[in-house]
């Protein structure tokens, strides 16, 4: 008899153990999820190591450096005109916008000012760069939230801008068009009329996106209240661009830190949104595309006549000194701190890129969010890996 009861006893213990095991498996001990290094949400190769409790992120740790190219070191062995080739590749979607602050900083040190027509051309190409950049953002945002259609429209309509870019500069992605003292060339014949037509296509695209995305209930549900950044936190992390304007901070370097470009000759508005969530950031970018279209149109109508280059020595030597010039790039504040010792090459260049600061908030922002929202938040912060790693 004892044998049977022993067997029962054993069976009971075994059942208990099995149940315990199941409980252990159900109990979420936490797991580590690797997002990236190759994820479509990252515009490059970013890896995020996220510790999860169930669906919730306890801790996110971004790992960078997959695209670190050492541009700050390389600038020390390049002459000033050669540096623009490098900086084109920092934020590769807004290449022309990367050149401008560097050239402006060098001009400030050399005490040269580009003629008004050159400033106009710079501003127009700068804004076209912004339009192309943010157009892709709007399409990309959709695809990351599961809406596949917008990205096709975005690529289709961005092409009009890239064609205009190519017609004027010869480069679709890396124009390398800005020069110390002016720009390389004037606009080709017929360019202005064609650009106006392209802008109309972008306007239509914006209206389409507003209906497709911003009027979409699912989109609103997935972005409203997700990844909220209070203005104070955003400022202390150094967020800039639409990320900080989406938190209600009225700060735009185009208006607040004029650097000689022609923005003050057009009527335009700095858009802000008080919510600070993913929806607000995306909405601000949509309005910025429209605003840029209007800036370009106004500037095209008021092109001043005159030369496009100031008098500049053939071999460019920059006098000793230090200068920091930043502009409002599509991603945010992009600036160069140039230390010159009077030679042909800069002594030190600190590249202040927008995405580096914009991304540095991500560990704080991702803590406590849910896995599907991680992608939404990263998409709405909008960064380019080349701009983080430099």
């Amino acid at each position, binding site marked *: 008899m004892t044998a049977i009861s022993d067997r029962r006893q054993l069976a009971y213990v075994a059942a208990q153990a099995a149940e315990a095991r199941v409980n252990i498996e159900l109990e979420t001990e936490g797991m580590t999820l690797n997002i990236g290094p190759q994820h479509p949400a990252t515009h490059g190769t970013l890896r995020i190591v996220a510790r999860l409790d169930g669906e919730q992120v306890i801790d996110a740790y971004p790992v*960078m*450096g997959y695209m*670190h190219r*050492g541009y*700050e*070191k*390389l600038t*020390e*062995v*390049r*002459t000033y*005109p*050669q540096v623009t080739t490098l900086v084109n590749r920092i934020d590769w979607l807004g290449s022309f916008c990367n050149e401008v602050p560097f050239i402006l900083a060098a001009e*400030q040190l050399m005490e040269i000012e580009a003629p008004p027509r050159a400033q106009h051309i710079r501003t127009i190409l700068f804004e076209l760069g912004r339009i192309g950049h943010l157009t892709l953002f709007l399409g990309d945002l959709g695809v990351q939230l599961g809406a596949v259609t917008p990205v096709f429209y975005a690529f289709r309509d961005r092409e009009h801008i890239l064609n205009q870019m190519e017609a004027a500069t010869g480069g679709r992605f890396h124009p390398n068009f800005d020069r110390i003292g002016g720009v390389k060339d004037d606009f080709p014949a017929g360019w202005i009329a064609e650009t106006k037509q392209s802008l109309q296509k972008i306007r239509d695209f914006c209206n389409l996106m507003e209906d497709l995305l911003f009027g979409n209930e699912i989109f609103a549900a997935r972005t409203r209240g997700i990844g909220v950044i209070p203005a*104070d*936190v955003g*400022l*202390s*992390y*150094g*967020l800039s661009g639409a990320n900080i304007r989406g938190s209600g*901070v009225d*700060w735009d370097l185009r208006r*607040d*830190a004029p650097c000689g470009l022609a923005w003050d000759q057009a009527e335009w508005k700095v858009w802000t949104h008080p919510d600070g969530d993913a929806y607000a950031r995306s909405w601000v970018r949509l309005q910025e595309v429209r605003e840029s279209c209007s800036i370009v149109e106004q500037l095209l109508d008021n092109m001043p006549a005159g030369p496009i280059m100031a008098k500049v020595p053939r*071999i460019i030597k920059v006098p*000793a*000194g*230090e*200068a*920091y010039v*930043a502009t409002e790039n599509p991603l945010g*504040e992009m*600036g160069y*701190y140039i*230390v010159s*010792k*009077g*030679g*042909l*090459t800069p002594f*030190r260049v*600190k590249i*202040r890129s927008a995405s*580096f*600061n914009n*991304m*540095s*908030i991500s560990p*704080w922002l991702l803590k406590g969010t849910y896995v599907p929202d991680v992608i939404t938040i990263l998409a709405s912060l909008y960064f380019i890996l080349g701009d983080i*790693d430099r």
Partner: protein
Amino acid sequence: MTDTAEAPEVADEAREALLEAVTSELGDAVVQHHLLPGKDLWIRVANDAFTEVGEYLKDRQRFRYFSYLSAIDWLPSPFGRSHEAMADEADDAGSEEEAEEMVSGYAGGDTRFQILARVYNLTTGLGLNVKADISDDAMSISSWTGIYPGASWHEREAHEMFGIGFSGHPNLDALYLPGDFEGNPLRKDFPLLARLVKPWPGIVDVELMPSDENPEDQAS
């Protein structure tokens, strides 16, 4: 000690008022300053007062927006001309001796390494460059992460690129470089190997034009 530039006669009341407030209220913490009217303002602060200055700027002067933090290595490159373009040799031959000694930039400096940070006041729209010396023995400074959390990544970058320590930083892991990387790439005595092995092909770009060429001059 003041070394305000005298060249442009533009009055810059906003920056002058800011400079006066900062120097009078921080006292000895501000070692030196430099003002370019209409352009920018630099202050150099004592190493041990760096955090105190950060707190003062954020809380009292409303410099709420943190732009960046980095460092400068003022050592002249020991690799000399091999680091610069060929054209430099042609018309820069006289500056050899001058390149030997270390010269600091605006707002001066006594040490090889300097911290460089920039903050903005969004109400007045003014930016302020803050520098601080890093002594070669200590090679460290107090961290700004407690004041501006955004300084965290910038300090990690400065740590791996220049080897500067930040006391009070929660975790100074390498940001870009692999874990077993040795050296601090942005220091001037860290060679850019690619350049040492093979001269920069871009030299061709600044080659003298045929009309400028003078064989006698080249020989000397």
